[in-house]
């Protein structure tokens, strides 16, 4: 696995770093990136496809504000080590779960559940408890203090 921003080509670094926000809403966003970077649109399309295939770019597109077009919650479970793989697999299989991590804490499984309505969210949380047979702690967001400007890779790398 690649381990540093410096392992990527100059073009890839720019694609990763320069377009994390305010992407052009013109009909041809990739051609606009190409003009800005002084390369061909073809090169931009190929590089983005490749970065996506390698899992470095999750996607190009919108990041939705939490709880604006749907509802979500952060859920935590305390699962014995020997059952964790299996429980994690069950949790991940729910399409409403988009992030699912093991963390080194008594609460060792942490995941985000997102749904289109409060009712649907409650059903999913109930189903997860039923299927895994472990209780779940739900911690819905009450306030978002973070202004999302994207992740400044080069800058963060230096600091």
């Amino acid at each position, binding site marked *: 696995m690649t381990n*540093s921003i410096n392992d990527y080509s100059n073009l890839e670094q720019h694609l*990763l770093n320069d377009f994390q926000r305010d992407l052009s809403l013109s009909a041809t966003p990739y051609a606009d990136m190409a003009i800005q970077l002084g390369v061909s649109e073809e090169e931009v399309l190929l590089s983005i496809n490749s970065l996506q295939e390698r899992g*470095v770019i999750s996607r190009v*597109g919108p990041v*939705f504000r939490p709880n604006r*077009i749907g509802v979500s919650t*952060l859920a935590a479970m305390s699962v014995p080590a020997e059952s964790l793989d299996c429980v994690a697999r069950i949790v991940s299989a729910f399409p409403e779960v988009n992030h699912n991590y093991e963390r080194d804490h008594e609460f060792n499984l942490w995941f985000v559940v997102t749904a289109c309505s409060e009712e649907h969210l409650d059903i999913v949380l109930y189903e997860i408890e039923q299927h895994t047979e472990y209780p779940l702690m739900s911690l819905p967001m009450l306030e978002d203090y973070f202004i999302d400007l994207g*992740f400044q890779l080069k800058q963060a790398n230096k600091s």
Partner: protein
Amino acid sequence: MSIAELNRNVLQLNEKDRALIKVVEHGLPVVSRPYAEIARQLDCTEQDVISRLQQLINNGAIKRYGVVVRHKELGYTANGMVVWNIPDDRVDELGICIGEYACVTLSYRRPRRLPGWPYNLFTMVHGCNREQVRQKLEEIIESCNLQDIEHDILFSTRRFKQRGASYTQKSADNKTAQKNTTSLRLIK
């Protein structure tokens, strides 16, 4: 509209918006005319797609629009979820202060769940390794004056799933989860 108002108001979306969100929530097609491609799927015009996305940006449904990177693949292999037990009357001020650091990608207030869970502010701190995350945390504690605030740091040890949120799923899609339950029962 203030950030607080944005966070509290769930938008009333029409069918067309929902259909559009369903197509774009996992990313734009990587083709020369992505909105034309989406328009073909939704049976509308390229300009319709662009205008509606612009509306979703203007009304705050879309927080950020662009390339979404995965930190881990870029060398930021350590991420510490730092949780804080902050007096209720200071959580707004400190949530904003911590959220402004370049290495921090989330700063959310969440409810306490006493007695087991006393923490009411969640922040995500990224670094190349755990030591660097701890160093950054020390810097944050120093400059936001958090020396007396109870906190804990939860490092991620494994990522089981990471993708964009899906706002358009229905319960009927949960068949895979149900299938997997059988195997758990055998193990337990």
